[in-house]
């Protein structure tokens, strides 16, 4: 078992579309030229002009926002790397779609039993890896162990410093992703969505959620205390022959 990752090299991509053709075939999607994520599109190319194509797919974050927000754990970050989806657990709240910083998950809006749809790095192919990588003749999409891919990416940046913006996107972005990008410009300039904060996104909600046990504990003690104190006051007032009403006013 390897911990799988994908490296997308925008500088090497020629925009042939072999990746999305292989993806559609592997996932049984109808053949079509994809331009955005939808229920039949797990990957597509953003044409940035001057023969620059930025491939989009699920980033397979290391601390995935979608996994953290799902109330029923229908999304799972597997030990092998891919973020996969369990439709039988899903209740369809679509919080994953709201939360994903990369705008990846989509929905079957016209189904009576809809599923969330997104790239699962072909996890169902039993360790054979994503179908898109072997389809690419230009090594613009390659797959393998994350550390190996980082080494390859660094090598490419060093070998052709003029062709590359000297940064590997995904090393730390959104807490690190298992889909890494290198290219001629920064990924912000190339139009890849930028996570709004440094580091893992789930920290944002955890900051609030971690207080839940304390609210329950101290809330019960505080309210129980108030209940007891005010009730006593009433009893004392009654014992002294005054009405509680008068006492309060």
């Amino acid at each position, binding site marked *: 078992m390897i911990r799988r990752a994908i490296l997308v090299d925008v500088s090497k991509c020629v925009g042939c579309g072999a990746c999305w053709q292989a993806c559609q075939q592997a996932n049984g999607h109808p053949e079509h030229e994809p331009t955005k994520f939808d229920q039949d599109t797990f990957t597509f190319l953003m044409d940035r002009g001057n023969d620059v194509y930025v491939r989009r797919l699920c980033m397979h974050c290391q601390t995935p926002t979608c996994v953290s*927000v799902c*109330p029923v754990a229908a999304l799972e970050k597997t030990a092998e790397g891919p973020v996969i989806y369990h439709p039988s657990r899903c*209740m369809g709240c*679509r919080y994953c779609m709201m939360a994903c910083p990369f705008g990846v998950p989509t929905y079957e809006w016209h189904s009576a039993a809809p599923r969330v749809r997104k790239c699962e790095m072909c996890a169902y192919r039993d360790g054979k890896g994503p179908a898109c990588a072997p389809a690419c003749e230009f090594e613009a999409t390659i797959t393998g162990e994350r550390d190996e891919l980082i080494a390859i990416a660094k090598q490419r940046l060093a070998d052709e410093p003029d062709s590359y913006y000297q940064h590997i996107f995904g090393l730390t972005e959104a807490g690190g992703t298992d889909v890494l990008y290198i290219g001629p410009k920064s990924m912000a300039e190339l139009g890849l969505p930028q996570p709004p904060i440094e580091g893992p996104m789930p920290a944002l909600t955890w900051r609030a959620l971690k207080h839940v046990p304390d609210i329950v504990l101290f809330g019960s003690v505080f*309210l129980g205390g108030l*209940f007891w104190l005010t009730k006593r006051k009433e009893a004392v007032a009654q014992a002294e022959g005054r009405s509680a009403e008068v006492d309060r006013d």
Partner: protein
Amino acid sequence: MIKKILNPRSWGFWMPIGVALTLTLGVIALIRFTRGLGAVTNLTDTFPWGLWIGFDMLCGIGLAAGGFAIAATVHVLHLEDFKPILRPTILTAFLGYLFAILALLMDLGKPWNIWHPIIMWNPHSVMFEVGWCVMLYTTVLFLEFSPVVLERFGLSTPLKIMRKLTPILVILGVILSTLHQSSLGSLFLIIPGKLHPFWYSPILPVLFFVSALTVGLAMVVVESWFSRRAFGKPLETHLLQRVSRASVVVLAIFLALRLRDLALRDTINQFLAFERYSWYLLAELGLGVALPMVLLASERFRRSPRRLAAAQGLVVLGFVFNRLNVSVTAFEAATGQTYVPAVAEFLVSMGLVALGMILFMAACQWLPVFPEGPVAEVEKSGGFAAIAGHTPAAVGDAATTSR
């Protein structure tokens, strides 16, 4: 009693509209459950939460917040003079949650899996926490309201047990409400890049909780006003005045929190640009918070129940505007997406509101929701001196408005 139900003045106009809306709701549900959410909503992959979440869920649950506030006032703080408004408030709260849950059943892609959070845990998910709290608190509200039903059918043994349990239920209710009212705000903490800075804030959970309190109290007043008009029930004006004084304080706390937060995040310059969203913000805070706060702070203003209801009505509208701004406006502004709810989405929301009102009226007709008997007698004789000065005005109001 039958005569009362068929009283054309209160039912004749609204009942047919309510029934028609409820039937429409059924038809839309049928389409939605056979042909998918896309057939009836304008939701998209880039705008996955719409009116049903922004209005039905966020507002429905927020508007029901009076339930835990008044219950705690009566049963935890032992301010028992508030008892006469407790039952209608609990009923409103229960129906509010029912409304939200029904809307959720429409909105969830696979509502038959709605129980999954019970066995499939993810404590890192805000939605998981909200799910649990709403589930538990709806049960608590049902139990808090159950004495009314038990009383109606004269079941004295379970009634005794419920009365014993009440303080525990109420404390549980306050804790659960604190958790999920704030967590509805926490839901949005994870999308700082997708909300306009006027509405994204790290203290969203606190803002959601405090504003839920403001609107919970406001609803107590507004709903008492409507019940009085619909049923000709006497209005506990002095209680509503005291509730409204509490409103002033809570509104002030909310305004302080909100302004401090806006200032800390350097949004002042953005506000001073006076573009579209500046006006939204100004309307939300000015008309929905500051204005009613100032009005309700005036003793002379509080004397008229009609003015009380109007000012608290502003609080309710401001609250609804705020929740829609967070869930729709701010999302549109930051993501560049546009979303206008489909007609069916509006109809479902309206249908659910109508259903809620029908249930409220039915419950008021058949169950001892309003104080009658000993409680009311004590209340009337005890409170009469205090409100004697205002009572003629209240009666006068009722006469003018019903004409």
